[in-house]
Each structure stands twice: as structure tokens, then as C-alpha cells.
């Protein structure tokens, strides 16, 4: 009788232990347990492959595969069960609520724009990559045609601004400088965003930020920017400036003050103080290196290809212009005064 009672207690205890330990055992599954197979297209097929290079550094990799695919056990895939997929809103509830109220919600779900295995934070995504997401549905040629109806230099605006800068309530804008490289070795040719591999090859074994950050102090001074832009060795490289938001919004409402151009162009030089050099990383994200305050306002060689009419004007040039204008007033004021004082000498002319 006592033995039966002891057996019962042991069974209940074991069951309790198993139940208590099982999530921990499942959680103990490492990402590598998944990527051992899903990292190889030959094993799981191209549609199910997860690139370690792009996935391993994402925030989603840090929470682990099992956080989103909770139903997966060690028996996968032999159990024949389709793995569960977490809904994005389970974690990103605020973003999800904002997005569901937008016009976009009817047309696309989160994964249409965001590959959960390649996600990066807002500041680690290039402006170009942001626009590629939009271009998946919004045909670039049509977008440009629609903008050209009202927007001066629509092509320039579209290639130098993330769509969300105007078409959402994204804010906290900074100037992101990207290294672009001339395609081919021809004298003329388009400049495209330089990939990590291209930059690594150009850096010749040094860290790629040293292409600009010559003293390797993790900070880019205006002097370093000028040196980079004036160095003949860099003639195939140009810094492309884009006005990018640090805080994104998923409301996708076009902002009124973008229509009259005042948001960007009348923001004044004070709004143009913060800029970063954004460098491509192996995982497809971008790493930012701080640039000296106000560097984009330099008159000539700080950022020779980045100029926002009205906002990035140079104070030094303003003073030179003022001196020139004052020079034009010397004759009317100086001569005019003497003319007035000697007017009696010319009386006979007017008689």
C-alpha cells in the first residue's frame, strides 16, 4: 500500500518536473539547431533558407527562433507538423495598431515589406533600402511621373530622400552620408551605393571607415571629410547625402508641410547640424559613424554633392555675397552724396 502511494507520488512528481522543465528544455534549443538545416538551401530549399550572414545580427536572432516558432520541437520536421508563426503584433503592438489604422493595412501585411529574418533598427537601414521596400509595389517610373507634376526636380528628390520622410510622420531627421561608387571605370557613369565587399576591397585591409576616418578615432571631422573629397584616389567615390528619419512611423500619411517644401528647405541651418557616415555592414545593415556638427554646411568640400536649397547655405558665402553687394552700393551712395553736394555746378545743364 505504502509502495503504491510512493509510486503515485513519484509519477506525479515526475510529471510535474517534466511539465515544469519542458519549456526550458525547448527554449534551450539554439538557433544553430535550426540554421544547421535552414542555413543550407540544398537541405531545405531556397524558400526556407535563412542566411546566417543577414540573420545572426538581427534583434530577432537574439530572441531566438523559438520565440516566434514556439510549436517547434526536437522532433521537427519528422513530426510532420507545420511550425507556428508568431504574429508581429505580439511584440510590436504599438506599431501594429498604428499600421492597422493606415491605408496601407488593406494592401500589405508586415511581411510584405519586412523580412523577419533580415530586420534591422531604423538607423541601421539605409535610405536606399527603405525605398526598395516601397518600390516593390510603387513602380519607380510611375512614382517619378506623379511627383514631377508638382515637385521641382522630382528625380533628384526621389533618389535622395526616403519616401517615408514625406509620406509618414517619421521624425528626428538627420543627414546620412552614404559612400557611392561610380559603376565601371568610365569617365562618366552612374554612382550606386557601395556594397560592403566593394568598400572592403577599396579599404585594402583596413577597417572600411578609415576610407574617411583617417585617424581611426571613430569620429569624422570636417577636415577628414574635406581630405576624403579632395583626394584624387577617391575620384570613383562620392558621398551621397540623404535626409533620413531616426524615428519611423507606420501611419503613412503624407505630411502637409512637405507639399510646400518648407519642412526641409525652410528648416534653417540649425536643423542641419547632425550627420553620420553610414557604412555598409556584411549583414546588409548600416553602421553609423558620427560626423562633426554642422559639417554639411561647409561651403565647398565638406559634402560637395549635398546641398539643400535654403537649409544648408554657407554663412561664410553669405558674408562674401554681402561684401559684393555692398561694393555695388559704393557708387550710388558715395557718388550720389557728392552729386547732391555739387548740384549747383550743374544748374546750367538743367536750364
Amino acid at each position, binding site marked *: 500500500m505504502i509502495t503504491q502511494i510512493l509510486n503515485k507520488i513519484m509519477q506525479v512528481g515526475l510529471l510535474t518536473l517534466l511539465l515544469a522543465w519542458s519549456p526550458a528544455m525547448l527554449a534551450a534549443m539554439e538557433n544553430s539547431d535550426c540554421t544547421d538545416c535552414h542555413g543550407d538551401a540544398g537541405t531545405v530549399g531556397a524558400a526556407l533558407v535563412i542566411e546566417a550572414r543577414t540573420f545572426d545580427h538581427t534583434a530577432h536572432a537574439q530572441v531566438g527562433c523559438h520565440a516566434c516558432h514556439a510549436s517547434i520541437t526536437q522532433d521537427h520536421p519528422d513530426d510532420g507538423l507545420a511550425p507556428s508563426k508568431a504574429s508581429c503584433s505580439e511584440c510590436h503592438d504599438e506599431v501594429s495598431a498604428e499600421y492597422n489604422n493606415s491605408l496601407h493595412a488593406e494592401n500589405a501585411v508586415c511581411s510584405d515589406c519586412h523580412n523577419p529574418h533580415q530586420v534591422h533598427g531604423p538607423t541601421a537601414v539605409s535610405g536606399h533600402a527603405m525605398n526598395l521596400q516601397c518600390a516593390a509595389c510603387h513602380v519607380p517610373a510611375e512614382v517619378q511621373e506623379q511627383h514631377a507634376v508638382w515637385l521641382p526636380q522630382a528625380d533628384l528628390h526621389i533618389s535622395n530622400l526616403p519616401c517615408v520622410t514625406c509620406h509618414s510622420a517619421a521624425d528626428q531627421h538627420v543627414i546620412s552620408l552614404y559612400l557611392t561608387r561610380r559603376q565601371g571605370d568610365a569617365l562618366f557613369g552612374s554612382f550606386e551605393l557601395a556594397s560592403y565587399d566593394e568598400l572592403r576591397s577599396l579599404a585594402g585591409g583596413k577597417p572600411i571607415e578609415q576610407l574617411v576616418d583617417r585617424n581611426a578615432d571613430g569620429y569624422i571631422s570636417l577636415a577628414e571629410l574635406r581630405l576624403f573629397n579632395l583626394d584624387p584616389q577617391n575620384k570613383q567615390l562620392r558621398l551621397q547625402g540623404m535626409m533620413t528619419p531616426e524615428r519611423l512611423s507606420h501611419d503613412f500619411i503624407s505630411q502637409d508641410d512637405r507639399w510646400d517644401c518648407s519642412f526641409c528647405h525652410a528648416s534653417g541651418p540649425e536643423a542641419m547640424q547632425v550627420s553620420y557616415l553610414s557604412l555598409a555592414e556584411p549583414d546588409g545593415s548600416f553602421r553609423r559613424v558620427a560626423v562633426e556638427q554642422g559639417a554639411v554646411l561647409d561651403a565647398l568640400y565638406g559634402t560637395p554633392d549635398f546641398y539643400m536649397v535654403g537649409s544648408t547655405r554657407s554663412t561664410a558665402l553669405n558674408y562674401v555675397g554681402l561684401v559684393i*553687394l555692398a561694393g555695388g552700393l559704393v557708387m550710388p551712395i558715395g557718388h550720389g552724396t557728392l552729386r547732391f553736394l555739387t548740384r549747383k555746378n550743374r544748374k546750367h*545743364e538743367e536750364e
Partner: protein
Amino acid sequence: MSPKNRIYLQPTPVRIWHWLNALGIITLCITAVQIRFPEHVHLFENYKDAILLHNAAGLVVTFSFTLWFIYYALVSRSMFKVYVPSVDDLQNGILRQAKFYLLTYFLGWANPHHPTPDNKFNPMQKSAYLAIMFLLVPLVSLTGLLLTNVSPMRDLVLLVGGLKILIAMHFLLACSLCAFLFTHVYLATLGKTAMAYIKPMWTGWEEEEAEEHPHHST
């Protein structure tokens, strides 16, 4: 009353060019102030309107410059004679004219230069207009055209040295043109009456008083 000679100094194409140019350049100067200092200057309600008007006025000036060039180079064929200073202009004329502006004008002496259709500018005017019409206006127009077409003309922009060099050139050249405008308008009032030089640019005809003080004309 002194006898008057009327000379047809400014033909119709020149007058059309001049006033079209004046309208365009004044519009460019006004809109430029808001374009460069939008957070301080609000002449136009909408920043975009200032930009579009500036671009349109720039095209008007470029068009009127073309008209000027065609007229003087191909129709009247007097461009070289009117705009290029002669050796005598450079050796004596400029000094003579400077002496008039800076000294003898105040003493009440007559202007040593007497305009004719083929020699309408005094030596100082010739030199100034040569620089303005053959350097300043073409360069400010070209930099403006590049600035309004940055993407399609990107290689040309890079050839200049980049957008910042281009905008600096455009800004400083435009300031120079505006500075000249102050002097130009002032000197236009320096005739025997304030409107004596301005009227011919409107009607085409200049009335020239017969020489009364030959000793003044040095």
C-alpha cells in the same frame, strides 16, 4: 533753347531684350532672397512658388540673352564694335571717362562720350558690359540651368566639382550681377536730367543737346 539732335540709339529688339532682362533679373533677385533665407523672408506664401518663379525668371533671362546675342551677332552685326573696347579706349578712353565720373562731373562739365548707334557705350561701359554680357550673365545662366537639372546633368555638375561649387558660383556671380544692377541704375540717372538716359531705352530715341561748352569736353 539749344538746338536738339535726335538719334535712334536703341532699336526695338534691344529695348525688348533690355526690359525683359530687367524684369527677369529683378524677379530673380527678389525670389532669390526667399530661396536662400526661407525661415526669415516670406515674400511669397509658399516656398515652392518662390522656386518656380525663380526658375521661370531664369529661363526668361536666358531667353532674352539669346535674343540679345542673335540681334548683335547676326542681325546688326555690331557686337564687336559696340562691346569690345578699342586700343584707344583702353589707353585713354577709360581714364578720360573715369576722370569725368570721379571729378569733372562734379564740376559741371559735359560727358566726354557722345553715343552713336555703333558706339553707344563709353569706354568704361564697354569694359563693364563686356565682362557682364560675355562672362557674368552666361555663367550665372549656365550654373542656374545646371542647378535646375541636377540629376540629368549630374556628370556636368561633377565636372564643375560638385553641387556646392556650383551653388557657390551661382550665388557669388548673382551677387555680382545684383551689385552691378545698383551701379547701373544709378549711372542711368546721371544724364542731364534723371530720365535722360532711361527714356531712350523705352522710346529708342535720344535727344542730344548741341555742344555748348566745348572746353568741358576733354
